[in-house]
């Protein structure tokens, strides 16, 4: 039986990227709702809540999903594995706390387990592919936000495009870049791109400019 999944994020391009990842598993997963910033309105087995480098808690958004009668289970999809945040999410009733380092087949497996009623938290050892652990670059001292900015640079985006996706000001973006460059010891954007790719910040088409998407 297919698992009906709603992908939940406030950023449409992120949702589209997740949808693309799961498309090869259409025999197991049915993405019933691409939900960019609007409430889930159809019955689903699992709502997969995608967050990118949320430094603070994401309780309100998760809580709304958990109390939604149309949603059976909620799983969080994140880089952020701060213990308190994981605990808080599980305490709210989240059944899955899944790392963004997981390949698509592992995500599908985890969604199956969550659907079956199990609690699934991506183990630390399972994140060993990531340099640093909880998010790429953490071991080098990058904050989650700095890592997010470097990862978006690694996708070839300009500061303006990064600002639009993160809802940060250009000056804030430049400040994060400046501090990240110091930490990862690069002095140019090209070097930051190479550093990002070498440290697991793989290219995500979903965050490419829309003009780069295939029809």
């Amino acid at each position: 039986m297919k698992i009906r999944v709603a992908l939940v994020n406030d950023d449409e391009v992120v949702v589209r990227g997740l949808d693309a990842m799961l498309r090869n598993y259409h025999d197991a997963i049915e993405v019933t709702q691409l939900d960019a910033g609007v409430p889930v309105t159809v019955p689903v087995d699992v709502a997969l809540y995608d967050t990118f480098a949320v430094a603070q808690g994401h309780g309100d958004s998760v809580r709304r999903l958990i109390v939604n009668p149309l949603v059976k289970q909620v799983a969080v999809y994140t880089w952020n594995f701060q213990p308190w945040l994981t605990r808080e999410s599980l305490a709210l009733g989240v059944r899955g706390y899944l790392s963004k380092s997981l390949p698509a087949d592992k995500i599908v497996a985890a969604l199956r387990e969550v659907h079956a009623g199990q609690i699934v938290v991506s183990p630390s050892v399972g994140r060993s592919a990531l340099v640093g652990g909880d998010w790429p670059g953490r071991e080098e001292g990058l904050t989650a936000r700095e890592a997010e900015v470097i990862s978006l640079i690694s996708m070839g985006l300009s500061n303006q495009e990064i600002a639009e996706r993160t809802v940060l000001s250009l000056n804030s973006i430049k400040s994060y870049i400046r501090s990240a460059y110091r930490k990862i010891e690069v002095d140019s954007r090209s070097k930051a791109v190479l550093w990002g790719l070498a440290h697991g910040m793989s290219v995500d088409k979903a965050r490419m400019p829309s003009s780069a998407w295939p029809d």
Partner: protein
Amino acid sequence: MEPIPESTQADQLYGPFVFENADLLERLTTLGDRVRGISPDCVGLSLSLREHGEATFTVVASGADVALFDAFQYVEGGPCVDSVSTGTVIAHHGDDPLSEESWTSFAAAISAAGIASTLSLPLVNHGEVTGGFNLYGATSTTFDDRHDTIAEVLGAWAEGAVTNADLSFTSRDAARRAPQVLREATRMSLAAALVAQDQELTVAQAEEKLRMAAVHAGVALPSLVDGVIDVLS
């Protein structure tokens, strides 16, 4: 001095840039002011760096000068831009009668607009040209007898100085293209890294392979780069 709008835009879109362990535009502005302390008639200063895809950044003396320079007609090339592109220190244009004649004609054409002299100074690191400064003077004697002092201030190679070779202020034209140049440089790095991963090459080898492939296929390099990113990402 102050950055021209395109240099500010380049910094906003793809900055911050580091030059001599400082913010590039802040450093360039400071250097421009210091040069004006030596040569008060200096009205513009450009810096081209290989590190940033040969992007050029320009500061000028005042808003009035910016408007003045906007009226210029631009030509391709220029000694420091050329030397950055080729990675070598080129000979003085004064040694080449044809070039001299060419530059003289440009000088005559634009002298009324305000640039009467230029000084080009390469930046050399371990025998390799890593960039270059172009300075622009409002009088024909702006930089006379000051090459060594200015080169010292800028940390440039005084022996590589070239005079009056960019009277048409081509470096400002290059600076206008900086946002696009920086975008393409970033995308090239991304594409080269993806090709390197895919084909087990070094990034430098992958970049060379992309450049050769574009030539052989007769396609614009940015188009090929975009295609590679789309396929390999």
